[in-house]
């Protein structure tokens, strides 16, 4: 460990490439924490957005007009407005309406803090895209399969849960993978409302050490690696769940 930190300290002295996040304990801690916050933002909002997507796509299959119209409106609104302004809208506009409580020391404390608002905004934003993805997945199921389920005595709900969702899930996975990668990239917007995620802490680090160029490149590489990990995991899952007899042959 010491050898690594010494190497990068020496690298700074010799060549001027200042990677403080690899030798300065304070910066290492900050950067690592930022990475964890980014991963937390991504994982939590990914799970919530998938749940939103399933519920919304379920609503769209209902024979009632009102839930359909509400879902369509939600999807249209969140897909066609800038995610950054959505985040400001939640944090500054709606956040201002929610009363603050006092903490143990008597300081005002927000009931829903900026990290929570970032999670809410990201989940709702990605959820709107997921509804569309699952809807097209459900629509891609051949009618004969649903009819076969009905003939076998499945109720409508049971056919949806046991027949349509497992099939639609497999059909939707590639598009879902793209959307989750998009979501991972969108977590950087939490920077704007002061959530200490990767971009935010990097900004602090380059402001303190004036190593903007190095940190920029580190950021690009770290996000590339994160996207790569998500893409790899999703592709593995896709392969594991692949429907026999559909799509290209297994390579």
């Amino acid at each position, binding site marked *: 460990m010491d050898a690594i930190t010494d190497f990068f300290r020496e690298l700074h002295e010799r060549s001027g490439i200042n990677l403080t996040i690899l030798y300065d304990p304070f910066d290492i801690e900050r950067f690592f924490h930022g990475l964890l916050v980014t991963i937390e933002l991504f994982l939590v909002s990914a799970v919530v957005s998938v749940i939103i997507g399933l519920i919304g796509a379920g609503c769209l299959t209902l024979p009632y007009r009102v839930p359909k119209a509400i879902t369509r*409106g939600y999807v*249209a*609104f969140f*897909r*066609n*407005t*800038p*995610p*950054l*302004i*959505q985040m*400001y*809208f939640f944090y*500054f*506009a*709606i956040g*201002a*309406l929610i009363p603050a409580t006092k903490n143990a020391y008597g300081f005002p404390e927000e009931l829903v803090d900026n990290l929570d608002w970032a999670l809410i905004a990201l989940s709702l934003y990605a959820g709107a895209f997921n509804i569309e993805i699952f809807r097209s997945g459900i629509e891609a199921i051949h009618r004969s399969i649903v009819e076969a389920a009905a003939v076998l005595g499945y109720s409508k709900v049971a056919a949806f849960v046991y027949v349509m969702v497992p099939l639609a899930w497999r059909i939707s996975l590639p598009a879902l993978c793209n959307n989750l*990668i998009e979501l991972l*990239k*969108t*977590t*950087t*917007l939490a*920077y*704007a409302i002061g959530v200490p995620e990767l*971009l935010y802490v990097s*900004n602090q680090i380059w402001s303190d050490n004036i190593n*903007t*160029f190095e940190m*920029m490149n580190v*950021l*690009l590489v770290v*996000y*590339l690696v994160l*996207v*790569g990990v998500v893409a790899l995991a999703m592709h593995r899952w896709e392969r594991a769940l692949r429907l026999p007899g559909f799509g290209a042959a297994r390579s």
Partner: protein
Amino acid sequence: MTNDRARFGPHVGIDLPGARERTSWALNRDLAGVLLAILTVVVIVLVVALLSGTDTGLVGALIKWTPFMARGFLLNVVMSLFAIFFGTIGGIFLGMGQLAPTRWISTPSKVLTQFFRNAPWLVLLFYCIFLLPFQVRIGGETYTIASWLRAAIGFTIPVVANFSEIVRGAMQSIPSGQWEAARSLGYRWRQTVTSVVLPQCIKRMLPPWMNLYAILLMATPLASIVGAEEALTNARTALQAESDSRLLLPLYAYLLSWFFIYCYPIARFSMALERRFAVR
């Protein structure tokens, strides 16, 4: 029928009886949907504005700041047009590069595309804001590069990478028989691409290109983080000037509705085009 096919190309199949009526009806329905959406947004904003204050001062404030915000919104549109224009040109070349027969061109093109497609827009924006020079000297005169222009250049990079993927996908969706036919007619690779493959791709690229434009426009408020005076910056300036917390909700909703009114028709139109071009 075969005669028609020869004259109008392979997509004459959509002209079956009833098909034309169906598509135009779908377009009308889209228009109705757009109008309904705009109406809903206007009603919501007015209701929110009226509910959040018993006096009409809030609506007055919204109207007062509209020209100022509109000036900012114009900058959003200008930045998006700049980025889509240069991004499209760059994307066509990078996309063709990805499929180039020589590895010297195709490998770097693929790497560049994947690298910039998978980096967050905001990080690329920071990259351009900090690393592009503040001033340039052209012919002895010094010009300052405005922050909006640097932001627009920052938006161009991801647009190039994303459009490059769209071009590659469209070019690969052209049946290989077309490539072989052009080759057997003595076309060189470049001639095949420019006069056989790309013209057929335009139809397939149009809907995703429009989606990309909508995504781009929705990304332009990011420029407010790096100091361009666009709609979001101006909205926040207005909020500071008024310093009235009751104005927060209506003003942000108002701003969201502008972007919605601009982007929603694009999304509907691209969906309608997609349906129309879909192979059935």
